[in-house]
């Protein structure tokens, strides 16, 4: 089963079209293995992206270098998944 320990979900705010385009550049960097939960769209709409642990520093550096604001929406994806599984097993039990 795929493991998401250390993966974070960042919520990026792109204020204008230029910033949206910057995020799209990020989307094209396949080696980062980014998973866009909410893709880049209209300026001002939140952009949510799951970032694997090995890519986190690079992504945050890129965002900061281009003045893109972000918050950490989910600190550790795996911990939420563990909670979800526990809840399901508790019910089944």
């Amino acid at each position: 089963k795929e493991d998401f320990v250390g993966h974070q979900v960042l919520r990026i705010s792109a204020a204008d079209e230029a910033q949206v385009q910057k995020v799209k550049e990020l989307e094209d960097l396949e080696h980062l293995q980014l998973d866009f939960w909410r893709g880049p769209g209209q300026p001002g709409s939140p952009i949510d992206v799951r970032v694997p642990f090995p890519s986190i520093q690079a992504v945050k550096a890129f965002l900061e270098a281009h003045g893109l604001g972000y918050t950490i929406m989910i600190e550790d994806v795996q911990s939420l998944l563990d909670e979800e599984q526990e809840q399901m097993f508790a019910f089944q039990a």
Partner: protein
Amino acid sequence: RSRSTDTFNYATYHTLEEIYSFMDMLVAEHPQLVSKLQIGNTYEGRPIYVLKFSTGGNNRPAIWIDTGIHSREWVTQASGVWFAKKITQDYGQDFTLTAILDSMDIFLEIVTNPDGFAFTHSKNRMWRKTRSLTPGSSCVGVDPNRNWDAGFGMAGASSNPCTDTYRGKFANSEVEVKSIVDFVKSHGNIKAFISIHSYSQLLLYPYGYKAEPAPDRDELDQLAKSAVTALASLYGTKFKYGSIIKTIYQASGSTIDWTYSQGIKYSYTFELRDTGRYGFLLPASQIVPTAQETWLALRTIMEYTLNHPY
């Protein structure tokens, strides 16, 4: 296993097997109202089921609702289960739903991407696409919401099999999509088509692949406004509404652009809640509230469809 749909737990996420057994229980409990149709088999050979809610007649005007076309959007399949139970509870009790079912049929496909859904339980909770293999690529799956024959191949989808928005080699390449296409065409009397996704609290209507307004844009917009107002009345969950391309981004090959092109005027896509923190990992405690508020919007659209025959 639950012994009846009354003891079934709607406030937890379930596996494919549990959902399929729920369907069988519901049919067994309401044989006069509910039947289960198999509209095809998935790429990996799983049956694709649709629940039909009908009080009689022959090929009546119908409403289609599907959930779970993107497999990781678990709150949608869970909401679909809740909708199914709600319809059986409210028929004969709720005036509006009774009027709808006395004149129309409702088709509800709860697990629209069974292979992907099974994979989210077994291997990768974040899986979104189908599980079909693409010759010449080591990457798996096609985005079933980019594979429809509406603007297929245009901007707003990817031709790279390794991306989450990969459109597939050709329109309807995915049997999970083709099965619905064939069903809609053979039925020929569907008047509203509602495809439910999560997340980001949106109610969307065509088009996604082009900026040109849909001919029925004003009516669709007005109805969307009524629907999201009804939805917000329960818990205050705020939805935005508008055409796909204007509200989020360009998306080609999408479900409701195709259904609209088939003359199904009331074609909508929902993006259900996340109150801004969990994304696809919405806690199970929010399943029922999400389903309840969404139901109010669905009921608004269904009632309008009943009252505006075309």
